[in-house]
């Protein structure tokens, strides 16, 4: 069954799942989980290199197969995030950035004002900006207006595993968006991915939901199927919700 590709700027993907590379029990399980998820985009963080460290994350990621999406995780101001984004691009593997400017450590919620400032600067500098934001429709629209390639509202707080908490806000965001909307953060299990895709999101980005599951590889497969399932259901057009029953079998001629 044909579906259009997920377009993010100049990039095109068949898979609609974007998967993080943090917190797996081992590098091997990460590599196997990425494979099982069917993803084509993997997020990474930017950190100081450890002198004398012999293994690298990049030993376990085939950069011919996966597009690298560096994040600005751990940044609490526009300036910090811009610095990290520039460094990430300088590594020379990708001009994409998952822009994340957080407000505080307790909630890990995004700082909307600093996020908008950083978006404006990075768009001017030619980055493909995938911006992490809250589920606020107005901020989502302002980020789109600022030139973000893709807007990524949190379903629920990072790592909380609560799924999409405010479907109504998500519907409002989706109604007016002209750029892809990808749910980023809060996915706990497969049905959370399906819900996001059924709402009409273009994709889902997740990490902890797979990496911290008891069996990350199996969960990665579950997320893949959930994503495909939700997408198919969305494209198929669900029946309306009704208050009263309606029989499927003929009611006469018996």
């Amino acid at each position, binding site marked *: 069954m044909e579906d259009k590709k997920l377009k993010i700027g100049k990039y095109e993907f068949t898979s609609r799942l974007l998967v993080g590379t943090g917190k797996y029990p081992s590098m091997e399980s990460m590599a196997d989980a990425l494979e099982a998820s069917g993803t084509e985009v993997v997020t990474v963080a930017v950190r100081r*290199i450890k002198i004398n460290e012999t293994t690298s994350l990049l030993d376990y990621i085939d950069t011919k197969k996966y597009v690298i999406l560096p994040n600005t995780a751990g940044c609490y101001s526009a300036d910090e995030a811009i610095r990290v984004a520039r460094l990430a691009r300088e590594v020379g593997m990708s001009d994409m950035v998952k822009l994340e400017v957080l407000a505080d450590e307790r909630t890990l919620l995004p700082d909307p004002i600093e996020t908008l400032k950083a978006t404006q600067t990075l768009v001017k500098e030619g980055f493909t900006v995938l911006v992490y934001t809250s589920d606020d429709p107005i901020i989502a629209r302002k980020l789109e207006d600022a030139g973000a390639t893709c807007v990524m509202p949190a379903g629920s707080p990072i790592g909380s595993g609560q799924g999409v908490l405010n479907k109504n806000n998500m519907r409002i965001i989706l109604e007016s968006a002209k750029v892809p909307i990808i749910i980023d953060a809060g996915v706990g299990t497969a049905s959370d991915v399906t819900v996001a895709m059924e709402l009409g999101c273009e994709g889902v980005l997740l990490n902890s939901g797979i990496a911290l599951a008891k069996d990350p590889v199996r969960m990665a497969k579950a997320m893949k199927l959930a994503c495909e399932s939700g997408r198919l259901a969305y494209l198929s057009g669900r029946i309306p919700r009704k208050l009263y029953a309606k029989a499927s079998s003929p009611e006469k001629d018996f």
Partner: protein
Amino acid sequence: MKITLNGETKACTDGTTIEGLLDLFKIDKNRTAVELNLQIVPKKEFSNRVLKDADVLEVVTFVGGG
């Protein structure tokens, strides 16, 4: 001379370039970005940028993240 590499003081010989320093510490330049005194240095300049005493370098790479 002494430089600061990722927060640690390191000794290196006069005339060491960024490329020389990365080689010295067996750092793969294809997987890193370098900031010298808070300014990003493009990879093509690694071989001719000579370090000075008290330079501060940040060398970053990709690690697991979401």
